[in-house]
């Protein structure tokens, strides 16, 4: 095994390169992904290596990117579409939920849609409006799509390849605030057998309470677990990786052990992933629960201006407060269970 230290963004780049080398039906499409290599340079160097027809700078039209990807998939290609920022996926929403998601069911399995939709998502980077959204729940709700997110370079490298290899359409959410974080990546682990895309990962084991998170906030959960351990609280952190479907086996196993769970995400609380997880846990582990599932999420507001995002995004203090609530500790800062 060769292992190499690289950033999360470089790991996606390496995963894309590997997938394109392995299968010449894999093609990349998006705005500014060719010569520029993408605004985040995720596709840097790929057009030089694979040419303009496999790394296509498209005209500025997201609906067309996804709509033509459907046709390319019909023709036997595996399109990997980059949406430049989370907030720009909505012009493509119709093609994704009305076409990409349903084609396999509509055609009784005759037509597959092995389309990967890469979306840099989430806040924490002080960006302008429409550059910090967390739209994952919209897509979880559209049956026929798989939705994944990664939190570290190794998973980025592996899961992007699994997503491309999947015959189902996959939304691949990349936490932009983690793009520059480095980690070890085993380059040979090109997916086969790992099944990372479908399964949750226990990041750190613990006994007293479980934190379930994904993407950019896994790191915040890990830091909260470290602080809690100094107070004698043992926290298990789970990185979901797969948001649809959710690996409830892994989540329920943990919650049966701890009896308490805090779900952490940036997206709004209402109708968010936390609601789905809380319901799924309650169904599966009702008699193991010592406290109602706790959600620590972004508020039910449009993503706020940059100067306010630190209040909107769950941070260490808010996750710790969530842990206190889940643990029935009297020093819970907010007593949120009222009303």
């Amino acid at each position, binding site marked *: 095994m060769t292992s190499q230290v690289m950033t999360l963004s470089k790991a996606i780049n390496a995963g894309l390169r590997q997938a394109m080398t392995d299968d010449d039906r894999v093609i990349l499409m998006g705005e500014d992904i060719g010569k520029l290599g993408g605004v985040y340079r995720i596709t840097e160097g790929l057009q030089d290596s694979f040419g303009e027809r496999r790394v296509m700078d498209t005209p500025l039209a997201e609906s067309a990117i996804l709509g033509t990807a459907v046709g390319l998939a019909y023709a036997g290609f595996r399109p990997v579409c980059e949406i430049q920022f989370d907030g720009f996926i909505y012009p493509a929403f119709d093609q994704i939920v009305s076409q990409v998601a349903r084609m396999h069911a509509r055609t009784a399995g005759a037509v597959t849609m092995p389309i990967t939709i890469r979306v840099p998502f989430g806040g924490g980077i002080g960006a302008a409006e429409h550059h910090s959204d967390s739209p994952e729940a919209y897509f979880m709700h559209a049956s026929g799509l798989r939705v994944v997110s990664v939190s570290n370079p190794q998973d980025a490298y592996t899961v992007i390849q699994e997503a491309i290899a999947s015959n189902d359409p996959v939304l691949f959410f990349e936490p932009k605030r983690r793009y520059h974080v480095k980690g070890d990546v085993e380059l040979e682990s090109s997916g086969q057998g790992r099944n990372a895309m479908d399964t949750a990962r226990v990041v750190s084991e613990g006994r007293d309470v479980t934190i379930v998170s994904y993407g950019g906030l896994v790191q915040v959960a890990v830091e909260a677990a470290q602080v809690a351990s100094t107070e004698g609280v043992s926290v298990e952190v789970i990185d979901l990786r797969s948001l649809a479907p959710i690996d409830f086996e892994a989540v329920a196993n943990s919650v049966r052990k701890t009896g308490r769970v805090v779900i952490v995400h940036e997206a709004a609380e209402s109708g968010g992933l936390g609601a789905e997880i809380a319901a799924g846990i309650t169904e599966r582990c009702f008699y193991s629960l010592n406290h109602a599932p706790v959600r620590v999420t972004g508020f039910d507001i449009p993503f706020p201006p*940059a100067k306010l995002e630190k209040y909107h995004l769950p941070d260490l203090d808010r996750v710790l407060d969530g842990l206190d609530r889940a643990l029935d500790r009297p020093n819970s800062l907010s007593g949120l269970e009222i009303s």
Partner: protein
Amino acid sequence: MPDDAAEFVQLITADGSRPSTSLFEAWVTDIDDAQLVARYEDMVVVRRIDVEATALQRQGQLALWPPLLGQEAAQVGSARALEDKDFVFASYRENGVAYCRGIPAVDLLKVWRGTSQSGWNPYDFGMATPQIIIGAQTLHATGYALGMQNDRSDVVSVTYFGDGATSEGDVSEAMVFASTFKAPVVFFCQNNHWAISEPVGLQSKEQLVNRAAGFGMPGVRVDGNDVLAVLAVTREALERARRGDGPTFIEAVTYRMGPHTTADDPTRYREPAELAEWAQRDPIARLGAYLRSTGALTDEVAGTIDETADRVAAELRAGCLALPDPEPLSLFEHVYSEPHRGLDRQRDHYARYLAMFETAPTRPAVQS
């Protein structure tokens, strides 16, 4: 010369002469030298605002800034053709238009400093706040025009968008609606040759102006670096809309001399020679040369204009640094116009959460 420099309406040439042969001269017979000096001042001040904002970003005072360097004539010429009652729906780059609408320069910065999601009240200036979703505002302008039509008003709405935007479905759909209903709207496309790293040739194999015919509306291609020509063609389009003859598509041929935004590095995708070529057609230098040839722009006048620009820039800087950071609980403001029990509950909880930090600056000790 760049590919498509020919075939457009031009009243003042790149070297500052005025052949007076264009039929569009008829639209600007009232524009005397004094008014041209005023447009010159507009462009100088707009550029100074732009340069100052870019500097503020470089100094960490703004998160981002989208420069309009090179597009001053397209923006000033068109915006100065409007009447106060008209309404503008623009993108993020139309800071020169905003200036002409009377919007205080510091209000342009709020979004980029991240203190608020918009800088002004649209109704105060007849200009919607900048649209970031490419092309979306063209539909809003068309709808506004339909409303004006319903109200039998002679207000015209004007929408600004880029060459890249013409590829978005929204823009085509807006043109369909506008044409079908003869909406009093002007589609003002600034072809600045680039959409981030993508050249205009990727968006269209034809001159953009040729789209107009397919939608059933007149199209006019203008030298976007000639403020007088832009004024003339915009006046014509406004007049057509006002008298009930429907929309016009204007392609203003100009050039984005700077990066897409301060986060962009154009050396990765375009040739320095191209930039040098367009520098020869600078909109300010050209009008300056013309006005010097007529004697209207003396060193003294130019000096006064520079002083004005410096003053605006100094005010801008001071105003930027004085912008207050928003309060945490303002997160919850204006999401709804009526009380909302779900959000009220979240605000209430968050207020209590914040209050705990005031009484207990560090996390309370574990008591369990």
